[in-house]
């Protein structure tokens, strides 16, 4: 009898979980900017918690979808090289986006490798004049100064996507933009791709 009850309870819990899962999926299309950031941060912390067991390859695998679904990486890649985008052939543009997506996931997999009690805290949310939303949050690190993380999001279709992350006042987009345009101007497209690939390679080894 007890066993049967247990079985029923397990089935019931399973059903509840399924329902919760589908409802999350249904909401995903109309998730607010804050929800997108929240979801991504939760996924990131979850990967950090299992970081050591997963190893680099495991973390990369686990973070691939969360990063790609929460960031508008195509747009970021485009903004990052500025006017140079127009000068590239379609094949080159596609190549750059591909490499950029891999670099973004790789840097997350490398930099958030283990967990020592870190947690993200939501501070506030504000709309910019141009239809964007900035989500202010900070990462609490035990025995260390908190790091401010400001996410700039823009609407892409029906969902919100991260366009820029400003960590302690340093804009990732502005930083990358300066780097990428400088390399493109000084050394050309092939050198840029080679350098990005080298970084991805280093991340996987370290």
């Amino acid at each position, binding site marked *: 009898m007890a066993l049967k009850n247990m079985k029923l309870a397990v089935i019931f819990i399973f059903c509840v979980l399924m329902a919760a899962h589908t409802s999350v999926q249904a909401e995903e299309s109309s998730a607010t900017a804050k929800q997108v950031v929240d979801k991504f941060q939760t996924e990131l912390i979850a990967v950090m918690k299992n970081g050591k067991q997963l190893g680099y390859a495991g973390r990369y695998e686990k973070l691939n979808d969360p990063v790609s679904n929460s960031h508008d990486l195509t747009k970021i890649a485009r903004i990052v090289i*500025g006017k140079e985008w127009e000068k590239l052939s379609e094949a080159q543009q596609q190549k750059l986006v591909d490499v950029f997506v891999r670099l973004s996931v790789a840097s997350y997999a490398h930099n958030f490798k283990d967990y020592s009690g870190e947690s993200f805290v939501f501070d506030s949310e504000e709309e*910019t004049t141009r239809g964007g939303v900035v989500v202010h949050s900070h990462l609490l690190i035990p025995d260390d*100064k908190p790091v*401010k993380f*400001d996410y*700039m999001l*823009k609407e892409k279709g029906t969902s919100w996507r991260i366009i820029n992350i400003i960590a302690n006042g*340093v804009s990732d987009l502005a930083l990358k933009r300066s780097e990428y345009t*400088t390399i493109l101007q000084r050394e050309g497209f092939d050198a840029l791709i080679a350098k990005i690939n080298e*970084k991805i390679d280093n991340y996987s080894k370290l």
Partner: protein
Amino acid sequence: MFKLYCGNRNTHIQKIVSGMVIGASILLGGCATTEVAKPQETANKADPYEHFNRTMFTFNDHVDDYVAKPISDGYRWITPQFMQTGVYNFFSNLKDINVVINDVLQAKFEQSAHDTGRLAVNTTMGLAGFVDVASRVGLEKNEEDFEQTLAVWGVPQGSYLVLPLLGPSTVRGIPGSVFDTAANPSSYVGMPVQLISMINTRASAEGSLKFIDEASLDPYVFTRESFLQWRNNLATDGKTEASLDVDNFEDELLAGDKDTPSKKGLSAESNTATPPGFTLRLDEESKEFKQTSNSFSSASKSFDTTSKSFEEATHKLDKLKKSKKLRKHRYHFSHGNYSTVK
């Protein structure tokens, strides 16, 4: 006797350092005059001396690789973590004196009370600063220095500079660090203390330097951008909205999308008129920081453009004179013709 010797040596070193700074500024002054004549292709307007800075950056990098990093690694290997933290806290506590001074200079009186409390707690209960007790009771460290005070006072930031051995700075950063050094008690004690302070600074920067090494495609540009953004964020107490960057960048992107052949020239012009970067954003946002972006170099550039426009003006005047003469000739000619026809 030893003390006296140390003091002498110390002043000697200070002389050398100040000599170096003066030398560097003269050297850079020299650059300023030559660079204006030959403008470089620079991605960032705040960095007109990129060529010189890159050379200095490479030099510093080599010094770090062969001297500073091995020493710092040795220090980190020998010293237990709690000692490293203690030493770091000790020097950080001495810097808090300067933080209080600059709080007052920036008229942040409430913050100065907070920082005085922090200094008092750490110096007494924190065993002369070795333990950062204050942070645990909610008196977190604030970062203030004279460079930020100058920024608050409206002194323009000036060009980005990479100083020999000292690393990234700006024109405004030089008087800033001279003042900060003068306001730091550890500058007046013997060489061993200063040496430990230097090694400790390098050792605590290990993480950031490693991150730059791993993440940057172009370490020079990465360092420059993050340094300038970080200083800018400190000077404005995090009030600048880096998010507006995106809008500027997006404008450019959209301008590129909507380019029709007839509009192409126009959009290109507007692109050059609005260079990317946070310096410009500051202009738009608050008038008080308008000067920040008007670096010394841009002042010299504007002199350059003025002299060019003068030249153009004289050319135009010459043309005008010529055309007047021509008109006179034509008039006489036509008049003559007319008279002959008549």
